[in-house]
């Protein structure tokens, strides 16, 4: 019976290309609002001011120091928050899954992570200004407890590399928690028992069994975090008002007005971002396949 329900050839005659009409609206939408805008940027980056084909914009991308600096700053911030958020998120996910904390803490952490990973943009920036800004709560707390004025006695500045990284961490490590908690659940009890029966210590179990199994999934998630930070615009703009020259902010300035005095270079900058994002997504999906060998 189930077999016949799966293959009801009589009531659903296969009629080839006509079936594609059913998904035509979706493709039309995707072409109009996703493919065409992206293609426009790609074409723009290979066009000079007279509308002729050129590689000059792409070459100039690698010669303009300000642009290279912007990419490099974005990459550093994204990598720092991906690795930092990744490690911290993993440890948190570990502590509520196999780490032996009470069950209610787990659901509390998962719920909070769901909220925090979606809490971004302007409100997040304002929250961090109230926390670590010049008159922020934690700034005052540190001054009172340790007698250290963050802004006068140290190099710290919320509107700099470290400040933006700390702010990004607020949505980065919760995302890691959300991805890693199910992966840690996927570690089979039998593996641990088998390892223990063979005389393995806890450290040996983690370094020889659990960690290698989890590694592709950890690395893949970190790549996801990297992309998450790399494409971020609103949080950085609200926090620094456009003063910190990460690549998204430079592109934003180019959209508002042709600050580079070469529209083609602006398109090339945008395309460079898409290339970085595409490489990370490919890396992610490759690692995802690796991790599916053991964890489901």
């Amino acid at each position, binding site marked *: 019976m189930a077999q016949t329900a*799966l293959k*009801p050839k009589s009531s*659903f005659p296969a009629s080839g290309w006509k*079936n594609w009409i*059913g*998904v035509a*609206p*979706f493709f039309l*939408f*995707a072409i109009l*609002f*996703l493919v065409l*805008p*992206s293609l*426009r*940027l790609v074409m723009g980056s290979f066009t000079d001011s007279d509308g002729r084909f050129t590689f000059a914009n792409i070459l100039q991308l690698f010669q303009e120091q300000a642009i290279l600096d912007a990419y490099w700053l974005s990459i550093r911030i994204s990598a720092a928050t991906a690795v930092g958020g990744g490690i*911290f998120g993993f*440890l*948190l996910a*570990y*502590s*509520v899954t196999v*780490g032996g*904390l009470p069950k209610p*803490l787990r659901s509390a*952490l*998962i*719920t909070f*992570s*769901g*909220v925090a*990973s*979606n*809490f*971004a*943009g*302007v*409100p997040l920036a*304002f*929250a961090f200004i*109230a*926390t670590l800004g010049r008159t922020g*709560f*934690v700034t005052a707390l540190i001054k009172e407890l340790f007698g250290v004025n963050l802004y006068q006695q140290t190099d710290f500045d919320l509107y700099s590399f470290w400040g933006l990284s700390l702010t990004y*961490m*607020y949505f980065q*490590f919760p995302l890691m928690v*959300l991805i890693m908690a199910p992966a840690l659940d996927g570690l089979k009890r039998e593996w641990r028992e088998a390892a223990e029966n063979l005389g393995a210590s806890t450290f040996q179990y983690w370094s020889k069994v659990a960690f290698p199994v989890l590694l592709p999934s950890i690395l893949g998630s970190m790549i996801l975090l990297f992309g998450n*930070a790399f*494409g*971020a615009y*609103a949080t950085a*703009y*609200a926090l620094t008002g456009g003063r910190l020259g990460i690549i998204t902010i430079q592109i*934003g300035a*180019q*959209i508002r007005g042709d600050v580079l005095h070469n529209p083609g270079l602006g398109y090339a900058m945008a395309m460079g*971002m*898409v290339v970085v*994002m595409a490489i990370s997504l490919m890396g992610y999906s490759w690692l995802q396949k690796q991790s599916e060998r053991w964890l489901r």
Partner: protein
Amino acid sequence: MNILSKIRQIPFWSWFWFILGALYFLLPLYATVNFSLRMERDVIGFKAYIRAFEDPEFLETFLYSNMLAFLTIVASIILIVPTAYWIRLRLPEARRIVEFITLLPFVVPAIILVFGLIRIYSSPITIPFTEINLFQPLTTFEVGTDILIIAGYVVLGLPYMYRSVDTGMRTVDVRTLTEAAQSLGASWFTIILRVILPNIRAALLSGALLTFAIVVGEVTLASFLGVPAFGPYLFLLGQHRAYEPAALSFASFLMTWLAMGLIQMFTGGQGQTAGTH
């Protein structure tokens, strides 16, 4: 000895990381609330909240953003549900390409998307190779800009909405339901509206709430397309006020929490995540 062994059983490092995480979560929230309650000197009060909510521009932009969110959700459902349904029923060979498209928004971040959208739709659209104008540039009139921004939001929400809907359809037997409805004489429209939609309502709701969380506070598309939405309003308010933005930030946090809480309630599963950071 007994007490000692009990102490040893306490997973010290687990607690350490958990408490550290809890502090990271809570301190910025506490700081924001604390700040927002101190608008009047030496008094703890809700003055900043009253001021913020009294501003007519707040209500206007907030309602406008809610309208955008609602229309985005409706448009995504109209676009995605029939597509996912059709792929399951008749066109499994389209699955890979459609899934690929729904992942593209991860590669094209909001700032790049809006760059492309502005460049394409700020000039009149002509039929290729002719000089005939199909319609006015979308960015030059209000309805056109609204269409553009809603389309942009549908794109941003595409990965989450598609995955929700597809997961929802996996749990119902689409084929049998369709056959049953067809044998009773239902049209395609009736089948989708009255058979498929009610069966995946939990998945739809979770996708819708996630889309809502993305759209209501969104800044990038809204500010570059110049629409009077809540995100840009909050940003501008922050440029020349101190306490009201803190109050509204905390209110947005509560709203995000409400949306995520509802998702958990309806799906009972792991939290989901989206975001336009």
